[in-house]
């Protein structure tokens, strides 16, 4: 008899006690959307196009994000301003296809395309998940604050002449024979 009580009843009481104690634990449920979750900065969510520290569009329309994309959901067209700077004429992401893999961010040579911690992208109409450049472009540098591709690249653009990029000597004078 005692053995029966020890094997069953005590177990029941302990269980009840544990359930009761849990009533005072910190709750795991997040009151979303009233309480916003804390996302890690490296979370791969909504994709943005950033600007360089000078406030210009970082994207140079090199097409590397589009070719890296495993679901082919990025399409863009290169354009060029009068002074040689490349930029996308249009830049479109079909978020209804995007799998948030982040390959585009890895492929981007200018840190223009970045994935952000924002994940709130649900729409009632699928067509609304197609985002154009105007929807994607933000007014800041995003996660990478200092990088400006054109300060490194050799191509001449407005405001940066030949020889003014990082680690560049002034343009050579072809007519000089001096060493």
């Amino acid at each position, binding site marked *: 008899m005692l053995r029966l009580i020890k094997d069953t009843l005590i177990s029941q009481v302990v269980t009840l006690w544990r359930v009761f104690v849990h009533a005072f634990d910190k709750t795991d449920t997040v009151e979303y959307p009233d309480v916003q979750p804390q996302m890690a900065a490296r979370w791969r969510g909504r994709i943005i196009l950033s600007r360089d520290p000078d406030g210009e569009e970082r994207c*140079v*329309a*090199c*097409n*590397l994000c*589009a*070719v890296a*994309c495993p*679901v*082919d*959901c*990025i*399409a*863009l*067209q*290169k354009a*060029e301003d009068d002074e040689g700077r*490349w930029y996308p004429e*249009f830049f*479109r*992401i*079909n978020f*209804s*296809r995007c799998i948030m893999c982040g390959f585009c961010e890895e492929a981007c*040579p*200018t840190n223009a395309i970045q994935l952000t911690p924002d994940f709130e992208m649900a729409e009632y109409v*699928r*067509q609304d*998940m*197609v985002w*154009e450049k105007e929807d994607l472009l933000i007014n800041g540098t995003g996660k990478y604050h200092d990088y400006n*591709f054109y300060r*490194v*690249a*050799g*191509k*001449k653009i407005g405001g940066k002449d*030949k*020889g003014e*990029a990082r*680690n*560049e*000597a*002034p*343009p*050579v*004078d*072809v*007519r*000089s*024979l001096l*060493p």
Partner: protein
Amino acid sequence: MAKITVDGIVYEVNPQNNLLQECLSHGLDLPYFCWHPCMGSVGACRQCAVKQYRNADDKIGTVVMSCMTPASDGAIISIADAQAVKMRSSVIESLMISHPHDCPVCEEGGECHLQDMTQMSGHNYRRYDFKKVTHRNQNLGPFINHEMNRCIACYRCVRYYDDYAGGKDLAALGAHHHVYFGRQEEGTLESEFSGNLVEVCPTGVFTDKTFSEHYTRKWDLQTAPSICTGCGAGCNTTPGERYGTLRRIVNRYHHDLNGYFLCDRGRFGYGFNSSDNRITEASLVSSHADEKGVRKPLTQQEAQRQFDALTAGDVVGIGSPRASLESNLALRARVGVKNFYAGFSAEQQRCMQAVIAINREQGLHCPDIRTLEQADCVLVVNEDITNTSPRFALALRQAVRNRAAQLATDARIPLWQDAAVRELAQNELSPLFILSPQGTRLDDVATETFLSTIAQQVALLSAIANTIDASVGTAATDEDSAEQARRIAAALISATKPTIVSGTSAGSEALIHATANVARALRKYSVQSAAINLCFAMPEVNTMGLALLMEEGGGTLDEALQRLARGNADAAIVLENDLSLRTTPAAIDAAIAGTDSGSAVWVVIDQLHNSFNARAQLLLPVTSFAEQNSTFVNYEGRAQSSHQVFPADAALRPGYEWLTPHDPLSPLLTTSETILFHSAQTLAAFAGAEKLLPPRTGMQALMKSPRQLHRYSGRTAMHAHSNVHESKQPTDRQSPMAFSMEGLSLQKDSSLLSAAWAPGWNSNQAISKFQDEINGELKQGCKGVHLLQRTLPPQSAMAVNSAKAGKKGTFVVYFIDHIFGSDELSAKSPAITARSVGPYLCIGKSEATALGLHQHGLARVSNGDHVVELPVLIRQRIAAGAVGIYCGAEINRHLFAGSVSVAPVNEDDNVLARSRQMFSDLIINDSLINNSESGRG
């Protein structure tokens, strides 16, 4: 055959070649920069280093440059040897020291030989911490972008541009690490073949400016094997499309024809496809009384219904030398042979009949372009080939170097030792004689240029034929021309591969017969009775195709217009043809008046708007070469397939679809394949053409070839702005290709080579992976089908009526062609328009002085009935008693054929300034022009 050992594996090689070429021929990956399959080796870049061992016992070996080492029998080399690998990676590291951080904003990126070779050599991190050398760029004109920072100084550009293509204005300038590849001063590149720099340059120094304006990476282009429509040479091209517009044209290797190079008209003349001038919808002139003359757009179904209703009765059909063979065949089938008329001018048609007969004659041979390159004595008769069939001119620039090849062979120098061969030969060139009314762009390599009118040329050709074979032709009347004839005849007789090149652009039948007579006379001396090379350049892509079709019956254009003028037809269908270029305005006006009185209608099917088709009642838009499957026949009679690159706009249809009555039960009747197959079965002239159709066996019967590379991007986003639900890829029922990246892999089946790509080889240099050996045939590609067989026995020389001389006080007119502007379609491309000039009059210096004309002033040109005022270009090198007229699109050349009188016009400074501006763009080998105007040396 010799044997060499590469990394322990024995390969059979040709000992005449170098190790690099043989390694690449056997599919081995070995990086290189300065070597080019067409230009031999100079050993400048040191990138192709390999280890060579003296014998099997030698375990140490020496590093050698494979491009400078002959593939001699028993050679033992190693590509994978650690020292050789180290050497190659050090070399590329040094080459990259000053290379800018540019790839994302470089048009070459993704198809860059430098990127490929860097990957192959294993260099990935710049350790050099000092400053990069930078350069200023030059504006090189509307075709080529210049970004000198990217240069690795391999010298390929100047070796191509100066040594291969004969350009004078691109050079290696500066010294040591300041070396600069550009022009002495900024300005348009003069060579007609400058576009090949884009493919020859292994980096992004020279890139395609027209492509950059709507740039797309190579992997994103939809491409298909196509044929250039710029002239009748039939060069193979690869056009590329993205987002529904044609983006660029690059070369597609063809062993017999264009090889690795195109001319600038072919490469940059694609812009008309998406120009504002394009006919984009069908339209009908309203016949209602209250809105008479108003042109109303029609939907495709309405247009087809109207077309069928209007052309139900007795219909005249006028074909076109620039429409595909299928469209011409469909028109012929629709209207019947009796009602089918050629779209040639009258003299062009007579010339074509003569040329076809000559091309059927035994003992003569129509050389392909590769054979032209091998000629050791060339006679060019009248045709300004640099401007009418430019790829020939590039081939002749190689032909004159056969003397150098001969000297090198005698001195036992391998021909791939480019610098040594050039050093040995210095300025020794094979004989090239040119008969031309004015100085030509080939004069700098010509032995002699005889400035002569057509009549003088006919006389001289007769004298040459007579000197070669006294039973032919007539001897020269004066001692000068007898001496000229002897010089040319002697050179032709002593040559082993004498070659004669002419063309039909002068429209002179006598000249064609006189030219053929020289070839016929030469047969007596031909080495081992080899056939004598004789070819005629054709002005349009399908001139030969239409001429062959006319062999099967049909009338001339004049007959068609006369019949229409009599009101003897219910309708006229004009297929892709601007008749105002083919005949006089009076003949067209009479025909239109005749149809108006009989209330017959004109239906014009065309690509671009022009003054002629604006007068048509029903105008139907037609697809361009890139939007349809078609067959074109080149100057040799070689039929080649041109495949559709991208689906056309819904309103556009190929000519053969408009013309073939639609049968919903058998829609396949309207495909190009069915039409071609049917004609091959029924028309003798096209027997054998069915060999062009893709085999229906093996893998090809089950799978289609993809038009897109396997890394085509953006499929789920490119149309998402209009509809997020992706539609199915367009299906292609007509051809063995698919609008898709799926299908037969290029590595398995390259019979339809949409774009040259192989693993590790993203640039066009990947073509070596598809050749059976370097410079050899494509492994699987179709070379086309020869439709002309040599069935006629050798003919004796024909009697030639010499042309009449002009009246006293008048000048004999010859017409000038320009590579940029003379071709109807390409002239409407923005880049070509930027290089073309308006109509002008060309006159010799002494005549101009006698008449009181000034350089760039105005002259009144008159032939009695018609008068026109033209800017004057005074040239030093022009036949006495002749004036040249460049008509452009503005002047009808049929009005001024024959002879004209010229008088000065009082011009003001504005006119002078305007024409001076115009002529400054004109590039002519003529000291008078170049020195006085642009200061070019």
